[in-house]
Protein backbone atom coordinates (compact mmCIF):
# COMPACT_ATOMS: atom_id res chain seq x y z
CA UNK A 1 0.00 0.00 0.00
CA UNK A 2 2.86 2.39 0.82
CA UNK A 3 4.29 1.86 -2.67
CA UNK A 4 0.89 2.65 -4.19
CA UNK A 5 0.67 5.83 -2.13
CA UNK A 6 4.19 6.76 -3.25
CA UNK A 7 3.13 6.33 -6.89
CA UNK A 8 -0.11 8.24 -6.40
CA UNK A 9 1.38 11.12 -4.39
CA UNK A 10 2.66 13.31 -7.25
CA UNK A 11 -0.40 12.77 -9.53
CA UNK A 12 -2.81 13.57 -6.68
CA UNK A 13 -0.85 16.65 -5.60
CA UNK A 14 -0.73 17.79 -9.25
CA UNK A 15 -4.50 17.32 -9.56
CA UNK A 16 -5.00 19.35 -6.38
CA UNK A 17 -2.73 22.11 -7.70
CA UNK A 18 -4.52 22.26 -11.05
CA UNK A 19 -8.02 22.18 -9.59
CA UNK A 20 -6.90 24.67 -6.92
CA UNK A 21 -5.73 27.07 -9.63
CA UNK A 22 -8.97 26.32 -11.45
CA UNK A 23 -10.91 27.94 -8.62
CA UNK A 24 -9.88 31.17 -10.32
CA UNK A 25 -11.61 31.56 -13.68
CA UNK A 26 -8.38 31.45 -15.68
CA UNK A 27 -8.53 28.19 -17.61
CA UNK A 28 -11.44 29.29 -19.76
CA UNK A 29 -9.97 32.76 -20.25
CA UNK A 30 -6.60 31.39 -21.37
CA UNK A 31 -7.96 28.68 -23.71
CA UNK A 32 -6.85 25.75 -21.48
CA UNK A 33 -10.46 24.57 -21.26
CA UNK A 34 -10.59 24.60 -25.06
CA UNK A 35 -8.09 21.72 -25.21
CA UNK A 36 -10.00 18.51 -25.93
CA UNK A 37 -10.59 16.62 -22.69
CA UNK A 38 -10.01 19.67 -20.50
CA UNK A 39 -13.35 21.42 -20.97
CA UNK A 40 -14.23 20.47 -17.39
CA UNK A 41 -11.56 22.91 -16.17
CA UNK A 42 -13.82 25.70 -17.39
CA UNK A 43 -16.78 24.45 -15.35
CA UNK A 44 -16.58 26.02 -11.86
CA UNK A 45 -18.70 23.40 -10.10
CA UNK A 46 -16.92 20.44 -11.73
CA UNK A 47 -13.50 21.83 -10.78
CA UNK A 48 -14.80 22.34 -7.23
CA UNK A 49 -16.11 18.76 -6.98
CA UNK A 50 -12.87 17.30 -8.36
CA UNK A 51 -10.92 19.40 -5.84
CA UNK A 52 -13.07 17.94 -3.04
CA UNK A 53 -12.71 14.37 -4.38
CA UNK A 54 -8.93 14.78 -4.79
CA UNK A 55 -8.75 16.14 -1.25
CA UNK A 56 -10.53 13.01 0.04
CA UNK A 57 -7.98 10.77 -1.69
CA UNK A 58 -5.15 12.95 -0.38
CA UNK A 59 -6.52 12.79 3.15
CA UNK A 60 -6.66 8.98 2.99
CA UNK A 61 -3.01 8.90 1.92
CA UNK A 62 -1.93 11.47 4.52
CA UNK A 63 -3.68 9.48 7.27
CA UNK A 64 -1.96 6.21 6.25
CA UNK A 65 1.46 7.90 6.06
CA UNK A 66 0.94 9.66 9.40
CA UNK A 67 0.02 6.42 11.18
CA UNK A 68 3.02 4.66 9.65
CA UNK A 69 5.28 7.51 10.71
CA UNK A 70 4.02 7.34 14.28
CA UNK A 71 4.89 3.63 14.31
CA UNK A 72 8.45 4.13 13.05
CA UNK A 73 9.16 7.67 14.31
CA UNK A 74 11.90 8.21 11.78
CA UNK A 75 13.51 11.65 12.17
CA UNK A 76 12.45 14.12 9.51
CA UNK A 77 14.77 16.09 7.25
CA UNK A 78 14.61 19.88 7.22
CA UNK A 79 13.00 19.96 3.78
CA UNK A 80 10.58 17.23 4.87
CA UNK A 81 9.60 19.17 7.98
CA UNK A 82 9.07 22.30 5.89
CA UNK A 83 6.86 20.56 3.32
CA UNK A 84 4.88 18.65 5.95
CA UNK A 85 4.26 21.86 7.91
CA UNK A 86 3.03 23.65 4.79
CA UNK A 87 0.85 20.68 3.83
CA UNK A 88 -0.63 20.58 7.35
CA UNK A 89 -1.47 24.30 7.13
CA UNK A 90 -2.95 23.77 3.68
CA UNK A 91 -5.10 20.90 4.97
CA UNK A 92 -6.28 22.90 8.00
CA UNK A 93 -7.31 25.93 5.93
CA UNK A 94 -8.92 23.62 3.36
CA UNK A 95 -11.04 21.89 6.00
CA UNK A 96 -12.12 25.22 7.46
CA UNK A 97 -13.25 26.28 3.97
CA UNK A 98 -15.14 23.00 3.55
CA UNK A 99 -16.95 23.57 6.85
CA UNK A 100 -17.78 27.11 5.74
CA UNK A 101 -19.41 25.75 2.58
CA UNK A 102 -21.91 23.68 4.57
CA UNK A 103 -25.46 25.01 4.91
CA UNK A 104 -26.23 27.00 8.05
CA UNK A 105 -22.53 27.63 8.68
CA UNK A 106 -20.75 30.81 7.78
CA UNK A 107 -17.84 32.69 9.24
CA UNK A 108 -17.17 36.38 9.43
CA UNK A 109 -16.30 37.93 6.06
CA UNK A 110 -12.81 38.83 7.31
CA UNK A 111 -12.09 35.34 8.61
CA UNK A 112 -13.41 33.78 5.38
CA UNK A 113 -11.16 36.03 3.33
CA UNK A 114 -8.19 35.20 5.57
CA UNK A 115 -8.82 31.48 5.07
CA UNK A 116 -9.17 31.89 1.28
CA UNK A 117 -5.96 33.86 0.98
CA UNK A 118 -3.87 31.76 3.37
CA UNK A 119 -5.01 28.56 1.65
CA UNK A 120 -3.78 30.03 -1.63
CA UNK A 121 -0.55 31.27 0.03
CA UNK A 122 0.26 27.88 1.61
CA UNK A 123 -0.42 26.13 -1.71
CA UNK A 124 2.00 28.43 -3.50
CA UNK A 125 4.65 28.06 -0.77
CA UNK A 126 4.27 24.27 -0.83
CA UNK A 127 4.71 24.30 -4.61
CA UNK A 128 7.88 26.38 -4.28
CA UNK A 129 9.20 24.15 -1.47
CA UNK A 130 8.49 20.99 -3.50
CA UNK A 131 10.28 22.38 -6.56
CA UNK A 132 13.22 23.55 -4.43
CA UNK A 133 13.49 20.13 -2.78
CA UNK A 134 13.40 18.35 -6.12
CA UNK A 135 15.93 20.70 -7.76
CA UNK A 136 18.42 20.55 -4.89
CA UNK A 137 18.23 16.80 -4.26
CA UNK A 138 16.39 17.14 -0.95
CA UNK A 139 13.46 14.94 -1.86
CA UNK A 140 13.56 12.66 1.19
CA UNK A 141 11.15 13.36 3.99
CA UNK A 142 13.00 11.22 6.55
CA UNK A 143 16.70 11.04 7.39
CA UNK A 144 16.73 7.25 7.01
CA UNK A 145 15.59 7.32 3.39
CA UNK A 146 17.98 10.20 2.76
CA UNK A 147 20.93 8.15 3.96
CA UNK A 148 19.70 5.14 1.95
CA UNK A 149 19.68 7.32 -1.15
CA UNK A 150 23.29 8.30 -0.54
CA UNK A 151 24.51 4.69 -0.30
Amino acid at each position, binding site marked *: *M*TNLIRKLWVPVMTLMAITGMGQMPIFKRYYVADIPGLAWLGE*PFTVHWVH*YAGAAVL*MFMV*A*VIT*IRWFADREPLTTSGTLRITLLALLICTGYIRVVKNLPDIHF*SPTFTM*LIDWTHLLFAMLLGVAALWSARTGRRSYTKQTESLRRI
Partner: protein
Amino acid sequence: MTPPTGTHMRKHSVIESTPNSPLSRRPSFSRRSFLKVFSAAGAAACASAAKPAEAQNTEKQEELMTVLDISKCVGCGECVAACKESNAHKYPTVRKPIPKMFPPRVKVEDWSDKKDVDDRLTPYNWLYIQTAELEHDGEDFELNIPRRCLHCTNPPCANLCPWGAALKEDTGIVRIDEDICLGGAKCRTVCPWHIPQRQSGAGLYLDLLPRFAGNGTMLKCDRCYDKIAEGKEPACITACPEDIQTIGPRSMMIKHAKALAASMNGYIYGLDENGGTNTIYVSPVPFEKINNAIEKGRGRPNLAPVKNSMANEETLTSALIAAPLAGIAAGVLKIFSDARKEKQND
Protein backbone atom coordinates in the same frame (compact mmCIF):
# COMPACT_ATOMS: atom_id res chain seq x y z
CA MET B 1 -52.10 31.28 13.78
CA THR B 2 -52.80 34.63 12.23
CA PRO B 3 -49.67 36.23 10.87
CA PRO B 4 -48.90 39.64 12.28
CA THR B 5 -49.41 42.63 10.05
CA GLY B 6 -46.68 43.60 7.65
CA THR B 7 -46.00 46.88 9.42
CA HIS B 8 -45.68 45.18 12.76
CA MET B 9 -43.32 42.55 11.38
CA ARG B 10 -41.10 45.05 9.66
CA LYS B 11 -40.64 47.12 12.78
CA HIS B 12 -40.21 44.07 14.93
CA SER B 13 -37.61 42.54 12.64
CA VAL B 14 -35.41 45.59 12.56
CA ILE B 15 -35.46 45.91 16.31
CA GLU B 16 -34.81 42.19 16.83
CA SER B 17 -32.09 41.70 14.32
CA THR B 18 -29.70 44.57 14.27
CA PRO B 19 -28.33 45.35 17.72
CA ASN B 20 -24.84 44.04 18.31
CA SER B 21 -24.81 42.25 14.98
CA PRO B 22 -21.21 41.03 14.97
CA LEU B 23 -20.98 40.48 11.24
CA SER B 24 -23.03 43.30 9.88
CA ARG B 25 -20.03 45.59 9.87
CA ARG B 26 -18.31 46.09 6.55
CA PRO B 27 -14.73 44.78 6.33
CA SER B 28 -12.35 47.68 6.56
CA PHE B 29 -10.41 46.85 3.40
CA SER B 30 -9.75 49.31 0.66
CA ARG B 31 -7.80 48.98 -2.52
CA ARG B 32 -5.10 51.22 -1.12
CA SER B 33 -4.53 48.94 1.82
CA PHE B 34 -4.32 45.84 -0.36
CA LEU B 35 -0.67 45.14 0.42
CA LYS B 36 -1.30 45.45 4.13
CA VAL B 37 -4.28 43.12 4.02
CA PHE B 38 -2.68 40.04 5.48
CA SER B 39 -1.60 41.74 8.66
CA ALA B 40 -4.86 43.66 8.89
CA ALA B 41 -6.97 40.61 8.05
CA GLY B 42 -5.07 38.51 10.55
CA ALA B 43 -5.59 40.93 13.36
CA ALA B 44 -9.22 41.54 12.50
CA ALA B 45 -9.92 37.84 12.04
CA CYS B 46 -8.66 37.03 15.50
CA ALA B 47 -11.22 39.44 16.86
CA SER B 48 -14.08 38.72 14.50
CA ALA B 49 -13.62 34.95 14.45
CA ALA B 50 -13.83 34.78 18.20
CA LYS B 51 -16.66 37.26 18.54
CA PRO B 52 -19.36 35.51 16.50
CA ALA B 53 -19.00 32.23 18.40
CA GLU B 54 -19.24 34.08 21.66
CA ALA B 55 -22.08 36.23 20.42
CA GLN B 56 -24.00 33.42 18.79
CA ASN B 57 -23.95 31.37 21.98
CA THR B 58 -25.60 34.09 23.95
CA GLU B 59 -27.77 35.83 21.38
CA LYS B 60 -28.51 33.53 18.46
CA GLN B 61 -29.69 35.68 15.63
CA GLU B 62 -32.04 34.65 12.90
CA GLU B 63 -31.38 35.59 9.33
CA LEU B 64 -33.67 38.19 7.84
CA MET B 65 -36.01 37.15 5.08
CA THR B 66 -38.23 39.16 2.76
CA VAL B 67 -41.61 38.04 1.49
CA LEU B 68 -43.02 39.63 -1.67
CA ASP B 69 -46.73 39.43 -2.37
CA ILE B 70 -46.62 39.89 -6.12
CA SER B 71 -50.43 39.94 -6.36
CA LYS B 72 -50.18 43.47 -4.90
CA CYS B 73 -47.39 44.84 -7.10
CA VAL B 74 -48.62 47.43 -9.60
CA GLY B 75 -45.23 47.83 -11.30
CA CYS B 76 -44.96 51.54 -10.44
CA GLY B 77 -41.15 51.30 -10.24
CA GLU B 78 -40.86 53.26 -6.97
CA CYS B 79 -38.68 50.48 -5.54
CA VAL B 80 -36.36 50.59 -8.55
CA ALA B 81 -35.92 54.36 -8.25
CA ALA B 82 -35.40 54.14 -4.48
CA CYS B 83 -32.82 51.40 -4.93
CA LYS B 84 -30.86 53.51 -7.43
CA GLU B 85 -30.99 56.60 -5.27
CA SER B 86 -30.14 54.83 -2.05
CA ASN B 87 -27.25 52.83 -3.47
CA ALA B 88 -25.79 55.42 -5.84
CA HIS B 89 -22.83 55.97 -3.50
CA LYS B 90 -21.88 52.30 -3.90
CA TYR B 91 -21.73 52.41 -7.70
CA PRO B 92 -18.23 52.08 -9.13
CA THR B 93 -16.17 54.96 -10.42
CA VAL B 94 -14.91 53.92 -13.84
CA ARG B 95 -11.40 54.90 -14.93
CA LYS B 96 -11.39 55.50 -18.67
CA PRO B 97 -10.05 54.42 -21.05
CA ILE B 98 -10.85 50.93 -19.83
CA PRO B 99 -7.82 48.67 -20.50
CA LYS B 100 -8.17 46.28 -23.42
CA MET B 101 -8.38 42.74 -22.17
CA PHE B 102 -5.99 39.92 -22.98
CA PRO B 103 -6.74 37.58 -24.61
CA PRO B 104 -9.23 39.35 -26.91
CA ARG B 105 -11.97 36.81 -26.12
CA VAL B 106 -12.36 38.58 -22.76
CA LYS B 107 -14.87 41.34 -23.36
CA VAL B 108 -15.06 44.63 -21.51
CA GLU B 109 -18.50 45.17 -19.94
CA ASP B 110 -19.11 48.87 -19.60
CA TRP B 111 -22.46 50.13 -18.31
CA SER B 112 -21.17 53.50 -17.17
CA ASP B 113 -22.85 55.28 -20.11
CA LYS B 114 -26.06 53.29 -19.70
CA LYS B 115 -26.78 53.94 -16.06
CA ASP B 116 -30.44 54.70 -16.78
CA VAL B 117 -31.23 51.21 -18.08
CA ASP B 118 -33.91 49.85 -15.76
CA ASP B 119 -35.50 47.00 -17.69
CA ARG B 120 -32.89 44.47 -16.59
CA LEU B 121 -30.20 43.99 -13.93
CA THR B 122 -27.04 45.99 -14.57
CA PRO B 123 -24.12 47.11 -12.36
CA TYR B 124 -26.13 50.32 -11.87
CA ASN B 125 -29.57 48.73 -11.55
CA TRP B 126 -29.81 46.06 -8.87
CA LEU B 127 -33.59 45.72 -8.99
CA TYR B 128 -36.02 45.74 -11.88
CA ILE B 129 -39.64 44.79 -12.51
CA GLN B 130 -40.48 41.75 -14.61
CA THR B 131 -43.95 41.61 -16.09
CA ALA B 132 -46.00 38.55 -16.95
CA GLU B 133 -49.32 38.62 -18.76
CA LEU B 134 -51.03 35.28 -18.52
CA GLU B 135 -54.21 33.36 -17.89
CA HIS B 136 -54.85 31.00 -15.00
CA ASP B 137 -58.06 29.15 -14.10
CA GLY B 138 -59.96 31.18 -16.68
CA GLU B 139 -58.80 34.50 -15.23
CA ASP B 140 -56.42 37.01 -16.86
CA PHE B 141 -53.49 38.23 -14.82
CA GLU B 142 -50.89 40.92 -15.25
CA LEU B 143 -48.26 40.26 -12.63
CA ASN B 144 -45.27 42.44 -11.79
CA ILE B 145 -42.34 40.82 -10.10
CA PRO B 146 -39.54 42.89 -8.53
CA ARG B 147 -36.35 40.94 -9.32
CA ARG B 148 -33.06 41.16 -7.49
CA CYS B 149 -30.68 38.85 -5.64
CA LEU B 150 -32.62 36.28 -3.59
CA HIS B 151 -29.87 36.06 -0.91
CA CYS B 152 -29.45 32.26 -0.79
CA THR B 153 -29.01 30.65 2.60
CA ASN B 154 -25.95 28.74 1.31
CA PRO B 155 -24.87 31.02 -1.53
CA PRO B 156 -22.72 29.44 -4.26
CA CYS B 157 -21.45 32.90 -5.24
CA ALA B 158 -19.87 33.34 -1.80
CA ASN B 159 -18.80 29.70 -1.50
CA LEU B 160 -17.05 29.52 -4.85
CA CYS B 161 -15.53 33.00 -4.94
CA PRO B 162 -11.80 32.21 -4.83
CA TRP B 163 -10.94 35.63 -3.52
CA GLY B 164 -13.33 35.98 -0.60
CA ALA B 165 -14.96 39.03 -2.18
CA ALA B 166 -18.48 37.57 -2.16
CA LEU B 167 -19.64 37.08 1.38
CA LYS B 168 -22.58 36.25 3.59
CA GLU B 169 -23.41 38.12 6.76
CA ASP B 170 -25.19 36.98 9.92
CA THR B 171 -28.24 38.91 8.79
CA GLY B 172 -28.53 36.56 5.80
CA ILE B 173 -27.39 39.29 3.44
CA VAL B 174 -25.15 38.08 0.62
CA ARG B 175 -23.05 40.85 -0.86
CA ILE B 176 -19.90 41.54 -2.82
CA ASP B 177 -17.09 43.67 -1.45
CA GLU B 178 -16.42 45.94 -4.41
CA ASP B 179 -13.01 46.93 -3.04
CA ILE B 180 -11.76 43.34 -3.15
CA CYS B 181 -13.63 41.92 -6.15
CA LEU B 182 -11.52 41.35 -9.27
CA GLY B 183 -14.51 40.95 -11.59
CA GLY B 184 -13.82 37.39 -12.70
CA ALA B 185 -17.61 36.92 -12.77
CA LYS B 186 -17.45 33.41 -11.33
CA CYS B 187 -20.23 34.49 -8.97
CA ARG B 188 -22.45 35.23 -11.97
CA THR B 189 -21.61 31.88 -13.57
CA VAL B 190 -22.44 29.83 -10.47
CA CYS B 191 -25.52 31.84 -9.48
CA PRO B 192 -28.57 29.89 -10.67
CA TRP B 193 -30.16 33.19 -11.70
CA HIS B 194 -26.91 34.87 -12.91
CA ILE B 195 -27.71 37.91 -10.79
CA PRO B 196 -24.34 39.71 -10.26
CA GLN B 197 -23.42 42.13 -13.03
CA ARG B 198 -19.95 43.25 -14.08
CA GLN B 199 -18.60 46.74 -14.58
CA SER B 200 -15.17 46.83 -16.22
CA GLY B 201 -12.72 49.65 -15.62
CA ALA B 202 -13.27 49.76 -11.85
CA GLY B 203 -11.96 47.88 -8.87
CA LEU B 204 -8.81 46.28 -7.56
CA TYR B 205 -7.76 44.63 -10.83
CA LEU B 206 -6.74 48.03 -12.21
CA ASP B 207 -3.93 48.15 -9.63
CA LEU B 208 -2.72 44.60 -10.33
CA LEU B 209 -2.54 43.22 -13.88
CA PRO B 210 -5.42 45.06 -15.57
CA ARG B 211 -5.01 43.40 -18.97
CA PHE B 212 -4.29 39.88 -17.80
CA ALA B 213 -6.27 39.15 -14.62
CA GLY B 214 -9.72 40.26 -13.52
CA ASN B 215 -12.07 42.47 -15.48
CA GLY B 216 -13.75 44.94 -13.16
CA THR B 217 -16.03 44.55 -10.20
CA MET B 218 -19.27 42.63 -9.69
CA LEU B 219 -22.35 44.37 -8.35
CA LYS B 220 -25.74 43.25 -7.13
CA CYS B 221 -28.38 43.89 -4.48
CA ASP B 222 -26.83 43.96 -1.00
CA ARG B 223 -30.27 44.35 0.59
CA CYS B 224 -29.13 47.74 1.86
CA TYR B 225 -26.81 46.14 4.43
CA ASP B 226 -25.73 49.58 5.63
CA LYS B 227 -29.34 50.58 6.35
CA ILE B 228 -30.03 47.24 8.05
CA ALA B 229 -26.96 47.77 10.25
CA GLU B 230 -28.46 51.11 11.32
CA GLY B 231 -31.79 49.47 12.14
CA LYS B 232 -33.52 50.78 9.02
CA GLU B 233 -35.40 48.99 6.25
CA PRO B 234 -34.01 48.42 2.76
CA ALA B 235 -34.89 51.29 0.42
CA CYS B 236 -37.15 49.18 -1.83
CA ILE B 237 -39.36 48.25 1.13
CA THR B 238 -39.65 51.80 2.47
CA ALA B 239 -40.51 53.21 -0.97
CA CYS B 240 -43.19 50.67 -1.93
CA PRO B 241 -46.63 52.39 -1.92
CA GLU B 242 -48.43 49.03 -2.01
CA ASP B 243 -46.55 47.42 0.89
CA ILE B 244 -45.90 44.33 -1.17
CA GLN B 245 -42.76 43.44 0.73
CA THR B 246 -42.32 42.30 4.32
CA ILE B 247 -39.03 41.75 6.12
CA GLY B 248 -38.45 39.87 9.34
CA PRO B 249 -36.82 36.88 11.02
CA ARG B 250 -36.72 33.86 8.71
CA SER B 251 -38.98 31.53 10.74
CA MET B 252 -41.63 34.21 11.11
CA MET B 253 -41.47 35.12 7.43
CA ILE B 254 -41.84 31.48 6.34
CA LYS B 255 -45.02 31.20 8.42
CA HIS B 256 -46.24 34.49 6.97
CA ALA B 257 -45.49 33.41 3.38
CA LYS B 258 -47.26 30.07 3.81
CA ALA B 259 -50.30 31.73 5.41
CA LEU B 260 -50.38 34.33 2.64
CA ALA B 261 -50.15 31.64 -0.04
CA ALA B 262 -52.92 29.66 1.67
CA SER B 263 -55.14 32.76 1.88
CA MET B 264 -54.98 33.32 -1.89
CA ASN B 265 -54.79 29.63 -2.79
CA GLY B 266 -51.44 30.61 -4.22
CA TYR B 267 -47.87 29.47 -4.72
CA ILE B 268 -44.45 30.27 -3.27
CA TYR B 269 -41.05 30.57 -4.89
CA GLY B 270 -37.66 30.87 -3.18
CA LEU B 271 -38.21 28.80 -0.05
CA ASP B 272 -36.58 25.65 -1.43
CA GLU B 273 -34.88 27.03 -4.53
CA ASN B 274 -31.12 26.49 -4.53
CA GLY B 275 -31.37 24.84 -1.11
CA GLY B 276 -33.26 27.83 0.31
CA THR B 277 -33.14 31.58 -0.10
CA ASN B 278 -34.02 34.53 2.09
CA THR B 279 -36.53 35.85 -0.43
CA ILE B 280 -39.95 34.33 -0.98
CA TYR B 281 -42.30 35.35 -3.76
CA VAL B 282 -46.00 34.62 -3.17
CA SER B 283 -48.23 34.49 -6.23
CA PRO B 284 -51.82 33.54 -7.11
CA VAL B 285 -50.47 31.87 -10.27
CA PRO B 286 -48.07 28.87 -10.49
CA PHE B 287 -44.50 29.99 -11.06
CA GLU B 288 -44.12 27.57 -13.99
CA LYS B 289 -46.69 29.68 -15.83
CA ILE B 290 -45.05 32.94 -14.77
CA ASN B 291 -41.65 31.63 -15.85
CA ASN B 292 -43.04 30.85 -19.28
CA ALA B 293 -44.56 34.33 -19.57
CA ILE B 294 -41.63 36.52 -18.49
CA GLU B 295 -38.83 37.77 -20.67
CA LYS B 296 -35.64 35.92 -19.75
CA GLY B 297 -32.03 36.34 -20.77
CA ARG B 298 -28.95 38.29 -19.72
CA GLY B 299 -29.79 40.35 -16.67
CA ARG B 300 -33.32 38.96 -16.74
CA PRO B 301 -33.46 35.99 -14.35
CA ASN B 302 -35.87 33.08 -14.64
CA LEU B 303 -38.39 31.81 -12.11
CA ALA B 304 -37.81 28.12 -12.82
CA PRO B 305 -37.33 25.49 -10.10
CA VAL B 306 -33.69 25.45 -8.98
CA LYS B 307 -31.89 22.50 -7.40
CA ASN B 308 -29.43 23.00 -4.56
CA SER B 309 -26.16 24.03 -6.29
CA MET B 310 -24.11 23.04 -3.23
CA ALA B 311 -25.65 19.56 -2.81
CA ASN B 312 -22.63 17.72 -4.23
CA GLU B 313 -20.26 19.64 -1.97
CA GLU B 314 -22.40 18.62 0.99
CA THR B 315 -22.14 14.95 -0.06
CA LEU B 316 -18.41 15.19 -0.72
CA THR B 317 -17.89 16.64 2.75
CA SER B 318 -18.87 13.22 4.13
CA ALA B 319 -16.09 11.70 2.00
CA LEU B 320 -13.67 14.26 3.40
CA ILE B 321 -14.59 13.17 6.93
CA ALA B 322 -14.52 9.45 6.15
CA ALA B 323 -11.28 9.45 4.12
CA PRO B 324 -8.82 10.21 6.94
CA LEU B 325 -10.66 7.81 9.27
CA ALA B 326 -10.37 5.07 6.64
CA GLY B 327 -6.70 5.99 6.19
CA ILE B 328 -6.06 5.69 9.93
CA ALA B 329 -7.78 2.26 9.98
CA ALA B 330 -5.80 1.11 6.93
CA GLY B 331 -2.53 2.33 8.46
CA VAL B 332 -3.17 0.60 11.79
CA LEU B 333 -4.13 -2.68 10.04
CA LYS B 334 -0.95 -2.49 7.97
CA ILE B 335 1.21 -2.00 11.07
CA PHE B 336 -0.40 -5.00 12.81
CA SER B 337 -0.09 -7.08 9.66
CA ASP B 338 3.63 -6.21 9.31
CA ALA B 339 4.23 -6.95 12.98
CA ARG B 340 2.54 -10.36 12.71
CA LYS B 341 4.58 -11.24 9.64
CA GLU B 342 7.77 -10.21 11.44
CA LYS B 343 6.82 -12.40 14.41
CA GLN B 344 6.13 -15.39 12.17
CA ASN B 345 9.50 -14.94 10.43
CA ASP B 346 11.25 -14.91 13.82
